[in-house]
């Protein structure tokens, strides 16, 4: 991939990566860092990563960076985590059903949220999601199904959010 193709990738995919990271990390600064890490890694490998596969590479890198960050975040104090979460939530301006779904997404498991976000936001196929997350297509499909089942339960009874 040339430098100009890399720059094109920035234009095409940086917003999607940021959106994906925002939904998973729930923190603007963390999401920015994930985007920067992902593109930095892409640049380091730009001579071997083809332009056509750059999007998948970026999402895979972002996903793994988030998993690593999520693991390390577990070691931070609860107070820090709570303040970050509050900040992220205060930046959201969703109302009605969208707000319920957004909150419900935070209640389902991480892998279910990931596969649903990749499916709904980016329109990835089961195979493509499997490449990013390291699951096979059947596992991806069942996780999407279970995730939607959980979301449906929350939407059907909003008291579950309280």
């Amino acid at each position, binding site marked *: 991939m040339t430098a100009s193709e890399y720059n094109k990738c920035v234009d095409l995919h940086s917003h999607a990566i940021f959106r994906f990271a925002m939904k998973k990390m729930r923190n603007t600064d963390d999401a920015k860092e994930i*985007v*920067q890490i992902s593109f930095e890694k892409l640049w380091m490998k730009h001579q071997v990563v083809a332009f056509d596969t750059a999007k998948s590479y970026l999402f895979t890198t972002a996903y793994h960076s988030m998993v690593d960050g999520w693991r390390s975040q577990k070691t931070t104090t609860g107070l820090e985590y709570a303040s970050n979460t509050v900040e992220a939530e205060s930046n959201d301006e*969703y109302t009605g059903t*969208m707000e319920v779904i957004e909150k419900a997404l935070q209640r389902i498991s991480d892998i279910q949220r990931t596969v*649903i976000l990749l499916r709904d936001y980016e329109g990835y196929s089961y195979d493509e999601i499997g490449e990013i997350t390291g699951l096979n297509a059947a596992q991806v*499909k069942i996780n999407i199904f279970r995730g939607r089942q959980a979301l449906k339960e929350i939407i059907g009874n909003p008291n579950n959010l309280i």
Partner: protein
Amino acid sequence: MKQFEITEAQEWQLFEMLEGNLSAEEAALLHQDIESQPALAYHFNLLKQTYTSAPDIHFPEAQSLKKQPRNKQVYLWISTAAAAAIALLLLWKPISTLTNKSSIEAQDNMVQIFEKSKLNEGLEMPSLNPDNASKEESERSANTISPAKSPATKNLAGNFTTEKIHPLITATNDFWGQKNDSQQSPLFTKIEIVKNATSNSFAQHLADQGSIGDALQFNNVENQGPQILPTPFGQNQNNVSGTETTQSPKAKLAKNPSPRKTGFALAKSFYNDGKTMIQHGHVPHVNIKTINKSHSLLPTIEMGLRLENNVIMASFNQ
């Protein structure tokens, strides 16, 4: 809510339909069931709401992620250092090809030549010295311009003398000595063109370029093919056709006593020679190989040369 309960199989069917995995016929049948069964419709509506669309979120620092292309254009103006570097690059391949040395040795020699040329601002062509002219004349008439005999190739062999040599003349003489290897270098092709050019128009064309004639002269001597002789700087050798074949190099040199060149004159000749080569399509790309003090090869840099508005422009790509 018990009246709205459905089986997992029904829920899976709703999911498959919303995912787009059912055929049109299967989807139509399920739609009929949804219309007839309120429980199925209830779950269908809830499940449909779990499908979200991407929110309008933009990464605010996208521009900061972009990188500058690594190909940077460097303008090489006429200066001693820049012109010498260009001449060095243009000569790299012929010398490496023709001296039957390992590439490392050839590169080492070129570095030595370059360093020597840098150290000696007032470079002087040895062949222009009347004292040396007779020696060179005998070497040329015997058509034995071997690397071991010419002053130029003394340098190539690493055996430096006190003579100061124009690197372009050095390389070209040495190259000519290996004329059987014509397929290996574009320089030889150029020489052949000059040799075969009988029309004055072509000679005039070359002369108009003001470059070859500025530093080199092509003569046919006693059916031995063209000889490449150094000529004084600052004196345009406009006549490069075969009409000069009867004039011996020695006589020519006697006619044109050697002026002592300044660093600027040398740089100008480097520039003009390089310019003509590029104009004639020679060496559009050069692989720059450098060695460190321990003779280890550093990564190769590709250099593309082109001419724009009389400025040699180089693009580097690692």
